[in-house]
């Protein structure tokens, strides 16, 4: 069929089953937006900034498991989107981002709103394309969706010059993807899996180290089963929160810089690390030479480059974690006696009772950790929880009772402030039946506050809960601990009236200083089902603890901070 490049984009998205696109129009992408106006295949959600369009698509993708789609124009439209691309790349989120480009005849002339988009996105996407002929569009878009969703997922960027979207050419989306150079290994090597199971059977203190790839691979319930069958305890990375479910007796907690004492001690004492789709990030391992020092390492990952990158794997297994765990589940019942690990579970229980994750109540001000626990008590499984970046993010990861995968949506790898609100908008549009909470800080929320307008316009009732300590809290914490309390440029005493801000955009705002007020505000916001901001005045100087100082060993945790 002979259609225009712009029509091809619409047609390809329809064939891919896309139902929601986030974006922002502009000169170079107008032909495509003209076709969006005419079609009814998908809803287009106009964010109020291109960065937010990408984050919203990320949130949508994370909660649904589908490829997120966003659309922006050339030049500043694209450069605004770069942070989102980098964020999706670091957290392996499958995305297709389409940008307009100046017409082919103007490329390279420093034309209005021209930027070398593929040159910029090369280092923060899984792959990218500059489409120079409309007859390539079907193939390119099909490849883009395929590459984004397979192997280690990631964002793919497609840059389309304006004249290419106007060009009429043949469109045939039925041809299968043929990429001779891209064939991810998904099935783990059977012999390696057998060896790994034997190593587990021989270990005394094995530990499952669960990474975010489990959630990407939809393998959480298989992993729960594997842990149960083997009777082996598990630690979750930040990205893997929700994999085991908070009530699971085999779940220790999160490990790493702000992991629990028990989780970090378990990692330090284990004799066999069973890493499932985790990548040994520096925020997880602390000082590498001291990390799980006496342990063998089984490492299952879809990305061969993640294996033995930082920690040498004794049993490397390249494959889709779901396939590999299923293969392990076939062998485990015969080979592994779970009773063998009972003393190890006891040791871990002892670690946990020695220094449980906790905080101390304050009679004057609400403690931020209490807010997180309270959201958990009031909403629990009924909410999806997005966060921004900083102290509130770590407290959420520590104290929220996550019960399922895809419940927790946060910027892990890149640590992007401003991620939470637009992501929570995408989460709400992808999972309308759950309450969409954005736990944020008084710093982060201002980085994409304009999205109040998007949420109000599209009736996506995100509830923003601001843990307001009048500080850029995490940086302030580091300044307190490591910079002799020189709180350089982190005091946010001057700030807007968040209630009025919310109301100004047509949402609803609550100012909260007591626990009773918080309960009332959250209940009211959930009941009214409108876009809300709950500004919670919390204790100003609270620190996220435990803490492994950057570059320190996991077992050297700061458990308390006493102000001298």
């Amino acid at each position, binding site marked *: 069929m002979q259609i225009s490049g712009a029509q091809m984009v619409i047609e390809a998205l329809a064939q891919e089953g896309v139902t929601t696109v986030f974006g922002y129009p502009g000169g170079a992408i107008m032909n495509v937006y003209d076709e969006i106006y005419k079609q009814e295949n998908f809803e287009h959600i106009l964010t109020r900034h291109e960065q937010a369009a990408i984050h919203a698509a990320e949130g949508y993708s994370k909660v649904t498991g589908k490829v997120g789609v966003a659309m922006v124009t050339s030049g500043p439209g694209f450069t605004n989107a770069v942070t989102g691309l980098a964020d999706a790349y670091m957290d392996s989120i499958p995305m297709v981002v389409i940008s307009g480009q100046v017409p082919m005849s103007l490329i390279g002339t420093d034309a209005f709103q021209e930027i070398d988009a593929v*040159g910029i996105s090369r*280092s923060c996407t*899984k792959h*990218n394309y*500059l489409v120079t002929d409309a007859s390539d569009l079907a193939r390119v878009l099909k490849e883009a969706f395929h590459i984004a969703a397979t192997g280690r997922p990631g964002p793919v960027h497609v840059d389309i010059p304006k004249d290419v979207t106007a060009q009429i050419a043949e469109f045939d989306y039925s041809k299968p993807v043929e*990429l001779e*150079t891209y064939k991810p290994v998904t099935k783990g090597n059977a012999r390696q899996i057998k060896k790994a199971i034997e190593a587990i059977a021989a270990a005394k203190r094995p530990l499952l180290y669960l990474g975010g790839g489990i959630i990407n691979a939809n393998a959480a319930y298989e992993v729960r089963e594997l842990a149960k069958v083997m009777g082996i305890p598990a630690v979750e990375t930040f990205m893997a929160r929700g994999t085991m479910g908070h009530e699971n007796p085999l779940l220790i907690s999160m490990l790493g810089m702000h992991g629990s004492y028990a989780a970090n001690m378990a990692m330090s004492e284990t004799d066999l690390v069973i890493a499932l789709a985790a990548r040994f990030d520096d925020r997880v391992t602390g000082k590498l030479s001291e990390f799980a020092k006496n342990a063998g390492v089984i490492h299952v990952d879809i990305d061969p*480059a993640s294996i*033995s*990158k930082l920690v040498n794997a004794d049993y490397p297994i390249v494959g889709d974690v779901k396939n590999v765990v299923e293969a392990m589940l076939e062998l485990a019942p015969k080979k592994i006696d779970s009773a063998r690990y009972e003393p190890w579970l006891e040791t871990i229980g002892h670690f946990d009772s020695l220094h449980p994750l906790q905080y101390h109540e304050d009679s004057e001000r609400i403690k931020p950790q209490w807010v997180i626990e309270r959201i958990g008590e009031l909403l629990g499984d009924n909410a999806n929880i997005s966060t921004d970046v900083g102290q509130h993010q770590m407290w959420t990861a520590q104290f929220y009772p996550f019960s399922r995968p895809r419940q927790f949506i946060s910027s892990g790898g890149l640590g992007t402030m401003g991620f939470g609100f637009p992501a929570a908008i995408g989460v709400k549009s992808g999972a309308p039946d759950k309450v969409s909470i954005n736990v944020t800080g008084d710093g982060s929320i201002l980085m994409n506050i304009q999205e109040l307008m998007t949420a109000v316009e599209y009736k996506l009732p995100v509830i923003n809960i601001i843990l307001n300590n009048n500080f850029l809290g995490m940086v302030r914490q580091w300044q307190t601990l490591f910079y002799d309390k020189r709180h350089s440029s982190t005091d946010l005493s001057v700030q807007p009236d968040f209630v009025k801000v919310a109301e100004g955009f047509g949402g609803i705002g609550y100012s909260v200083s007591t626990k009773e007020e918080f309960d009332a505000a959250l209940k009211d916001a959930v009941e009214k089902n409108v876009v809300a901001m709950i500004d919670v005045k919390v204790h100003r100087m609270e620190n996220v603890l435990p803490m492994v100082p950057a570059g320190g060993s996991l077992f050297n945790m700061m458990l308390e901070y006493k102000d001298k």
Partner: protein
Amino acid sequence: MSDNVRRVVSVIVYNESSTLSRITDLFSARGYNIESLTVAPIPESKYSRLTIVTSGSSRVIEQIIKQLHKLIPVLKVYEHADLVEKEMALVKFPMGENISDIDAICGAYNGKIVNVGTDVIFVMVADEPKRVSNFLNAIKKYHPKEIVRSGAVALER
């Protein structure tokens, strides 16, 4: 462990305009060093072959190979252990130098005089990279005006 030794890596890539920058971007983004890089299409195929001379520990090289492999247009990557390696150099001398001496040295390094102008003569040599370096040392006293090296190409034995 053999640390920071010279390595020769061959990369077979799909022949499209952006591929070379994907590869060089990868090296700079991850802090790997490129000593030389040559690229040319493989005859009668849609692929090109790159020969990259780099250096690093075995762990770094393993990462380089894996990261290269992750690039979508990359078909194959191999590090050569047992290889035949050649490099070419072109040198321009002023006419006044001792031509027969230069010619004799070229002969010893698999080379010859390839072009003679009114003021300058051109010679080429093609040999192992180390020997090309030796050659360039040996001809220093004949005041070469300009030198260009091609970078290494290699094939596994």
